[in-house]
């Protein structure tokens, strides 16, 4: 019984209950199916709140762990090991928070094969939650790869005209990286005798040159997922073709699985390699920031613009992580959440206008402010949050990251040069350029197209979908302390590991 009622098991597998109920419903009962899915995901969010209440923010270690032997034959030492700590608690909350919002956003947008859609969506939630909670590499890999399957269907069945191409590309790209990680996982299991992450960290002792190879194998899997420049080419296709709810989850949660992988596995497991690789990773991150911003500016399609802006924003996250200091990593984790909120909201907003107008080309709009004032106001807030205006969430994360990167640029820091932070700061300015440019094209100026005059403003359901996101955008922007408080001890532990590695590397 303990196993079934353990809070982490419940929060991970509860959506399966909804899947089970939906399996017994008929395709025609569309609204019932929608309600079942929504209520299931809301309850899952409620359970995750209960986990948050039980969570002890002062404890830097893994908490609420459930650790049972799973496969123990023939020298396999695989455990069923779920636990949560300061690195993952916020991402767990983000997952359970964005899922009901995404489901709500599909109410009218998805009208075909609703049953299949909701089943895949809830399965996806199981996979994502599992990724953030698994502390055994084998179990982690199962959840990690499993998320591909439902997402592949979400893009491939309900996506845009190029959906099949985008779905297969998404699947193969991600799998390519994962397979080398699988070999690295096997290497660890064979040579260290365990797949459990905390045990592996405690054991340590991997020679520096081997660390570097393992680091590369893990980093490839995660860098494709993030995606870091130059491994990003699957992302625009997947985002543009995915249905709105799919894009929200893809940007909001799936990309974070990559950045989370770096902080959970790459840095603590291979600290020496992480220190060595930091300048390269940071350089790639900065290129990503500038490249993403520049390409966003050139887009005509709003959704593509938001997709490329993700590359830029996640570049900030990567830069913060590989500053390998407190401010950088804390800022990076917060920025993961921020990007989930702001970009999630942007994709929702793009979806809303697409549902009305069936186009996303910016030239087809203009002067929307006078026709859809509520829509305009909400878009303005979200856009400002995305470009990092002080007082909104994006600013806090980006500022902390830049501080961290600057600090790492001091003599003795891992980056050893202030250029990283300097070029990244240019990215902040570019973000303001492309986002304001987009806003201007859509909302300001005269109404240039007759069709747009008949567009209706947001309805209650749509406003309710967005309000929770806006509340958090303001909350994090004005009072981020509780969020930092949740992660600070766990981040401190990672930093200590990195320092230990730096000391060990000294002659």
């Amino acid at each position, binding site marked *: 019984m303990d196993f079934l009622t353990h809070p982490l098991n419940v929060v991970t597998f509860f959506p399966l209950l909804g899947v089970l109920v939906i399996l017994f419903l008929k395709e025609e009962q569309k609204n019932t199916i929608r309600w079942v899915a929504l209520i299931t995901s809301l309850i899952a969010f409620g359970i995750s709140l209960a986990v948050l209440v039980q969570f002890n923010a002062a404890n830097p270690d893994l908490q609420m762990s459930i650790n049972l032997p799973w496969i123990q034959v*023939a020298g396999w030492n695989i455990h069923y090991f779920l636990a949560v700590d300061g690195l993952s608690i916020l991402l767990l909350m983000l997952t359970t928070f964005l899922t009901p919002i995404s489901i709500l956003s599909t109410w009218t947008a998805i009208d075909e094969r609703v049953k299949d859609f909701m089943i895949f969506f809830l399965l996806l939630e199981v996979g994502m939650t599992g990724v953030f909670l698994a502390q055994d590499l084998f179990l982690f890999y199962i959840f990690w790869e499993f998320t591909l399957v439902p997402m592949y269907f979400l893009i491939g069945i309900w996506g845009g005209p190029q959906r099949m191409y985008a779905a297969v590309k998404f699947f*193969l790209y991600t799998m390519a990286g994962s397979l080398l990680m699988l*070999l690295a996982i096997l290497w660890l*299991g064979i040579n260290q005798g365990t797949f459990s992450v905390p045990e592996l960290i405690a054991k340590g002792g991997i020679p520096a040159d081997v660390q570097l190879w393992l680091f590369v194998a893990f980093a490839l899997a995660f860098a494709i997922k993030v995606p870091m420049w130059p491994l990003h080419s699957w992302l625009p296709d997947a985002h543009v073709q995915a249905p709105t709810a799919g894009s929200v989850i893809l940007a909001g949660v799936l990309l974070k699985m990559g950045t989370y992988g770096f902080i959970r596995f790459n840095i603590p497991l291979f600290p020496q390699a992480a220190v060595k690789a930091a300048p390269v990773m940071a350089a790639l991150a900065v290129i990503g920031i500038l490249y993403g911003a520049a390409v966003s500016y050139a887009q005509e399609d709003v959704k593509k613009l938001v997709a490329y802006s993700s590359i830029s924003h996640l570049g900030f996250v990567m830069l913060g992580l590989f500053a390998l200091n407190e401010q950088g990593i804390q800022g990076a984790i917060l920025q993961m959440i921020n990007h989930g909120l702001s970009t999630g909201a942007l994709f929702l907003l793009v979806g809303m206008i697409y549902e009305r107008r069936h186009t996303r080309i910016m030239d087809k709009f203009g002067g929307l402010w006078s026709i859809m004032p509520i829509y305009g106001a909400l878009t303005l807030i979200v856009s400002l949050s995305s470009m990092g205006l002080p007082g909104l969430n994006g600013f806090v994360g980006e500022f902390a990251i830049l501080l961290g990167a600057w600090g790492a640029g001091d003599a003795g820091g891992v980056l050893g040069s202030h250029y990283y932070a300097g070029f990244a700061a240019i990215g902040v300015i570019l973000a303001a350029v492309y986002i304001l440019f987009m806003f201007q094209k859509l909302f300001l100026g005269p109404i240039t197209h007759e069709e747009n005059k008949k567009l209706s403003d947001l309805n209650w359901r749509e406003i309710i979908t967005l309000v929770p996101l806006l509340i958090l955008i303001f909350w994090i922007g004005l009072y981020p302390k509780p969020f930092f408080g949740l992660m600070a001890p766990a981040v401190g532990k990672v930093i200590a590991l990195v320092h230990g590695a730096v000391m060990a590397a000294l002659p």
Partner: protein
Amino acid sequence: MTLNTLGSDFVILLPLTFLLGWASLLLLVDLFVPQERQDTMPLLAVLGLVATIVLSIMQAGQSAWAFQGMAVVDGFSTFFNVLFAISGLVGVALAYDYLRQMDLARNTYYTLLLFSVGGMMLMSAATDLIVIFLALELLSIPLYVLSGFARPKGESEEAALKYFLLGAFASGFLVYGIALVFGATGTTSLAGVVQAVHGGALLNPMLFIIGAALMLIGLGFKVAVVPFHMWTPDVYQGAPTAVTAFMALGAKAAGFAALLRIFLTAFPQVSADLTPVLWVLAALTMFLGNVVAIAQRNIKRMLAYSSIAHAGYLLMALVPYGQQGLSGDVSASLLFYLVAYALSNFGAWAVVMVLERQDDQGLGLDDYAGLGSKSPFLAACMTVFMLSFAGVPPTLGFVGKFYLFRTVLQGGFVWLAIIGVLTSLISAYYYLRVVVIMYMRDGDPQTHPAPWLRWTAGVMAAGVVALTFFGGPLFNWASQALLTAF
């Protein structure tokens, strides 16, 4: 090695002797069952197979020699006895619906199937090179006949003839290899070979290595390893699909049973010469099988190349066979993967048969368009099998590949493992294409009602997923299915 009386030899090999006796009996019974009564023979075949499974399970944990060291009962052979008898059961279930929907129902089918299962079982128990050869013929000859079962259809006859000619050619290699090993060691019994190699009584080491290589070629034909795979696509495509499904697993598993027993017991001393050969063969097989599968538009041909590729993955885990302390892992990972492959293989072919119509209609990949909405159950099962073939969690195929790669990495063959994962990636492309077509294209596929085929698909899909999470007993069983040492 104790000498038994002839009677007790039969008792020791009871599952096998019972099955062969039962099959011979059915040969006679067949004469008295009118052709219109189509249920009797399958039912009798099922009874015989179920009894065989029970007898095999009763032997679990036992270990004994029979026929003066020519055959053995051990954990390894018991594992394969059960695997082959269950394959036989599935083979009957698949054939029962399939033969009727293709107007091929003839009672001889089931007798031949039982003889072939008997050959496979003997293959896993044989500890004498001559008995291995006999077993190979006993399992192959019924398969040659079954491949031509759809006569007078041209493709089926072609498949039978091609399979027979190339199979006979391969047998020639095997026999010649056995002859050379005999020449080098003065014995055909594996125990004798082991003694000769250990005791330094090897008359001619060069002959021994050439003999071993020729035997590898002979068995390589059977399990469809590149470059001895040429027959596979044509035979798989031309043979009646129920036969293909049975052959794809049965002949491959029997071939690997023999390879494992011979290589792990008799050939470790020459691993320095054979390991590079196995390495190259495994890499070639994985690569070619998966790459050529991409170009196939016919599902039977695609699955044929996929089966070649899987022979490559299995062979990959055999590469470190000569290393001290790894033989248990080599054998266990191969056995485990064979079970994983068996489930997905039978399931996938069952789905293929539900869609296949007469005159080779319904076999193109495009015939699967729209299956996702027309028949969600079949499409979901097929998706599970494709993911399992590709090694994507949460399927047994993933756990199986994990085990294979673990063995290879333990042996220190990192580059082979990397080739393995990269070719898996290639394979994901064509497996996913089936899923894309089923779910993302519109179409109106026609399906047969075929309850047995649907049941088979459902049970296999459930097994593929459930065993991923609750595979403990299977792990134990595979890791305890030990070969008798000499």
